[in-house]
């Protein structure tokens, strides 16, 4: 089974985003990182109201605007043009990061290069050879948001596992990741390590374990040792804001 084949087995980018979106409760204040996390906004169920924060100074970020309504001075953290919903507020950078650092953001969903089983995250630098290090707000977000979730492919483009016993790349923060939504599984980072919450369709615990660089705990296994296939419709909002 090649890497390309195995990718077809798992969830798509939109399905990964949907999996995370379904775990965000109504009323949450959420910051979405660049990349797959941005897709989460499109998958919030209609009966939930979630407020999106973008660290460059907007609470109440809306969807991408129609081209004729876009404004180069209304952008998101990825510097793409965005919109503001009714009830939004603009503020300066120190106030925006006070919101983050002060623990007011309920959930921040980021991409990852590596996640360790102790919750360490590496997502900002490819290491000493990085030709142009750039950190942005990642370190502030992981230090400040109440919950850090990761949405990422289970492996790198070269097929190497991203979920590891230890990060080998420079870390963004220590012990801060709570959940990981990959194309192959949804995983909770517990004191004991990676705990499998859900497997993607058409894959298996054994196969996903092979593609993971640390032990996967399976507390969902039933008496026969099989993964209890948790259907998406069963899932409401296990996570509650304080």
């Amino acid at each position: 089974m090649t890497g390309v084949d195995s990718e077809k087995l798992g969830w798509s980018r939109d399905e990964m985003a949907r999996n995370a979106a379904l775990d965000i409760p109504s009323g949450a204040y959420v910051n979405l990182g660049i990349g797959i996390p941005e897709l989460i906004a499109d998958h919030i169920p209609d009966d939930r109201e979630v407020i999106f924060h973008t660290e460059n100074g907007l609470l109440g970020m809306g969807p991408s605007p129609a081209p004729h309504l876009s404004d180069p001075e209304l952008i998101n953290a990825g510097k793409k043009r965005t919109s503001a919903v009714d009830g939004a507020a603009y503020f300066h950078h120190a106030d925006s990061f006070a919101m983050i650092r002060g623990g007011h953001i309920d959930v921040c969903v980021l991409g990852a290069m590596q996640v360790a089983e102790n919750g360490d995250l590496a997502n900002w630098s490819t290491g000493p050879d990085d030709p142009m290090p750039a950190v942005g707000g990642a370190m502030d977000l992981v230090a400040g948001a109440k919950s850090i979730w990761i949405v990422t492919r289970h492996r790198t483009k070269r097929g190497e596992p991203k979920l590891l016993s230890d990060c080998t790349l420079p870390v963004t923060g220590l012990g801060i990741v709570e959940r990981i939504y990959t194309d192959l599984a949804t995983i909770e980072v517990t004191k004991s390590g990676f705990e499998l919450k859900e497997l993607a369709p058409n894959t298996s615990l054994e196969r996903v374990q092979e593609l993971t660089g640390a032990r996967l705990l399976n507390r969902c296994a039933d008496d026969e040792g099989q993964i209890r296939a948790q259907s998406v419709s069963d899932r409401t909002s296990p996570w509650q804001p304080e």
Partner: protein
Amino acid sequence: MINKYCSSLNDAVADVFDGATLMVGGFGEAGSPIELIHALIDQGAKNLTVVSNNTGSGNVGLAALIANGQVSKMICSFPRTANSTVFPRKYSEGKIELELVPQGTLAERIRAGGAGIPAIYSPAGVGTILAEGKETREFGGRTYLLETAIKADFTLIKARIADRYGNLQYNKTARNFGPIMATAANKTIAQAAQFSKVKCLDPEAIVTPGIFVERVVEVFDPLVESDLVSAGATYP
């Protein structure tokens, strides 16, 4: 749908618990959430640590909360003002504790609490008796005091206008401590003279974004503390 409107003052303060740390907005009467304070008197929570710039005047509002024996400690910058007799009397009788903090340091410690900054260095008070016991450190040849953040379980503030998200705007100098206290408490409870449709508030002019506010209760025509004091009013 997110809706932070609370239908009664009593509901708004129902969960304030004995021993809680409570921030109360206001500089003198401007911005003092008098109706919320009165609801807290009715509610009866005791042994409160109150963070507020002053200690109230007459026998209403914050002064009445203190008179009612609900406050064991005040953290403030100016505990005596015109017509403030309740706190000075209790203090002289040794019945209430006082932590006196320079006004700007008080504001900055509250802001730090809301911003996830555990401590800052400030030049205010260096060499004075208020610096006694505080750690000092030099930066660029000048001495500063280490000042730690203040956080609270609850904040009570007064706003001019609010929407269902808890976005707030204030009135003139009644803004004072409201925006920073809103950020520094686990639960911020605001009274507002007016509820606004969400789309009516200009996103460029919102002072407290709703993320900092848990509950908003409408007090259409709030009491004027100085009028009550002039009239010799007492609460309850």
